[in-house]
């Protein structure tokens, strides 16, 4: 696949590849702003596990965090997700593009 890849975002893809993190991100999007505690309440994983995943998402720029008193509140960073969605669309299209080229060549001849 690397052949057709332009400018991948390793941290983002790695962060999204994990099903638990993906689910956590969806839960956070629904909550709007959440803490490790509110997220753990809705997910089948412990609060420390939530924190671990939030660190990965934060590092990838997929969530932002702010401190409010003793809590750290997280939210999804939409711009980063949109950018990633655009990149993935381009990458997933690699085979469609190749098959279109194959089709054109076959039908020309």
């Amino acid at each position, binding site marked *: *696949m*690397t*052949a*057709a*890849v332009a400018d*991948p*975002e*390793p*941290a*983002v*893809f*790695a962060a*999204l*590849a994990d*099903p638990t993190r*993906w*689910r956590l*991100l*969806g839960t956070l*999007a*629904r909550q*709007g*702003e959440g803490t490790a505690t509110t997220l753990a309440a809705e997910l089948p994983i412990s609060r420390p596990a939530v924190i671990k995943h939030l660190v990965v998402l934060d590092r990838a720029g997929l969530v932002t965090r702010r401190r409010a008193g003793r809590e750290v509140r997280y*939210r*999804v*960073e*939409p711009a980063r*997700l*949109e950018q*990633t*969605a655009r*990149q*993935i*669309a381009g*990458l*997933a*299209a*690699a*085979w*469609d593009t*190749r*098959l*279109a*080229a*194959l*089709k*054109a*060549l*076959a*039908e020309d*001849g």
Partner: protein
Amino acid sequence: MTAETDRIESDVLIAAPVERVWALITRADHLGRWFGNAGAEVDLRPGGALSLRWSDFGTFHGRVEAVEPPHRVAYRWLSRRESREEPTPANSTLIEFTLAAEGDGTRVAVVESGFDALDVDTEERAAALASHTSGWTSELGELADYAAQVPAAR
């Protein structure tokens, strides 16, 4: 939610006979035009060597895994550019083409699989992961839209 991470599938209906399409997916002069864009070499027998060249990405090597004319051919290609290692599940993915007559044309299905078993560096792994199904893309887009609607502060 989330997605299949191990494989990517696609197919296309081509208005040409199976034999012609078979030639296009197994002959080096053709592979070097629609798959690579700067040439290819292929020794079309199980275990035979495969090379695909791109003018802007360089050369990717691989191996022919299966040849069943004119309906199925499978190649394994190395994820690392210019690598000439022996292809294994840890360093390569499997590409399988299946051809079937459909009306006057040919249905070509391609499955590229083995992304989960890749043991390559982060960037290459990311590139491989990026070939998630397109369904994943729309879900990401929906999630982004959803997240954007939520007020910035409460």
